[in-house]
């Protein structure tokens, strides 16, 4: 996945790993990807892609459910 949540109040950030799916992130103002690009968070909870197959990186778009190699 790479990257980390950005927050002025780091202790407010909560993350949850979804088995086989994304990382849920709550309480962050942005997500900084591993290239240093900062993506603002506009939802109460965002799903960060962990499989690298999303077409909407850094966000999950459900592609982790597609058959592998398809």
């Amino acid at each position: 996945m790479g990257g980390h949540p950005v927050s002025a109040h780091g202790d407010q950030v909560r993350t949850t790993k979804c088995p086989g799916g994304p990382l849920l992130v709550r309480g962050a103002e942005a997500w900084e990807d591993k290239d240093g690009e900062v993506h603002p968070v506009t939802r109460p909870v965002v799903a960060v892609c962990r499989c690298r197959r999303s077409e909407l990186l850094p966000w999950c778009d459900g592609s982790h459910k597609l058959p592998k190699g398809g």
Partner: protein
Amino acid sequence: MRLPKSRGPLSAWVRNAVTHPDPVDPLPPITTAPGSSLDDDDLQLALWMLYELHYRGFDGARDDSEWDHHLLRARREMEVVLERDLRQICREQVPTAEPERIVEQIEALIAQSPDSGLAEFIEEHADRAQVAEYLRLRSIYHLKESDPQTFALPRLTGRAKVALAELQYDEYGAGRPEMLHQDLFRAALRGSGLSDEYGAYIDELDAPTLASNNVMSLFALHRRLRGASMGHLAVFEATSSLPCRRISRGITRVGLPPEVSAYYDEHVEADAAHEQVALRDICGELVAAEPSLADDVLLGAQVCLLVDGHAASQLVQRWRSRRTSTLPGPTPEPRLWAVTR
């Protein structure tokens, strides 16, 4: 909105009863054959109208008809028929719930459900008129998107309640009026040259599409069925991201403007998160707190798959049979995502 045209004795009775104050004639007998209520136009429209009294109501209907005991009693009679059918048609697919594995069990139901092929058809084959027809059929729900589940909120407690409130907040724009999903869909309708008026296309809805709306109200308006409401929601959210991408591509392919695809693009991203919230934080936590609801959670999940799947496959079949070209026939193979939207 204006009152829908009646389609038979039940809907004619409701039309009359919501507009006239005095004792109404008794509800005509419900003659729906067991197992056929999803395809009963008159029953589904009559029930839809009775539910609509709890949302925005109708022009010309009595304002107090929402809690009129004649109407509530009629609603109950129709609901009994619908719920009996839903339990009957879901019985075979739904396993006995294992509360600690509820998330995996919902995911398994989704995985084994056949793909209607609707999103793929819209992506690759639909013409502009078919895309417009799809938007009109979906408009009845999307213009009150998420409102049914809001009725379930006071029936939940603790973690599941927090998670449902979080999900609904996002559906309602997360503090940004311009992102209210209902209004994103209004913009999509306008961008397609269609009316964005609430309920404008009700007379076009077929029975299965009305049924897919009605089951959400049935589950959310009965505290007893709160588990089914949340199971339904989880499947709804978990079968949205990938189909929405296909629908967005189809919309662009037929040359409709970006404000039409924007609704679907928003749902690719939003529902990837909503899926996880609904499965884990709503259904998982609800069942952890109230294990006795686990069976109803699975029932609601399977109802969403079957009812939305039925409406979607009816539409694809209508489209396919109207075409004479050499389109591939229906391929109801199980997919990892059950396409309903």
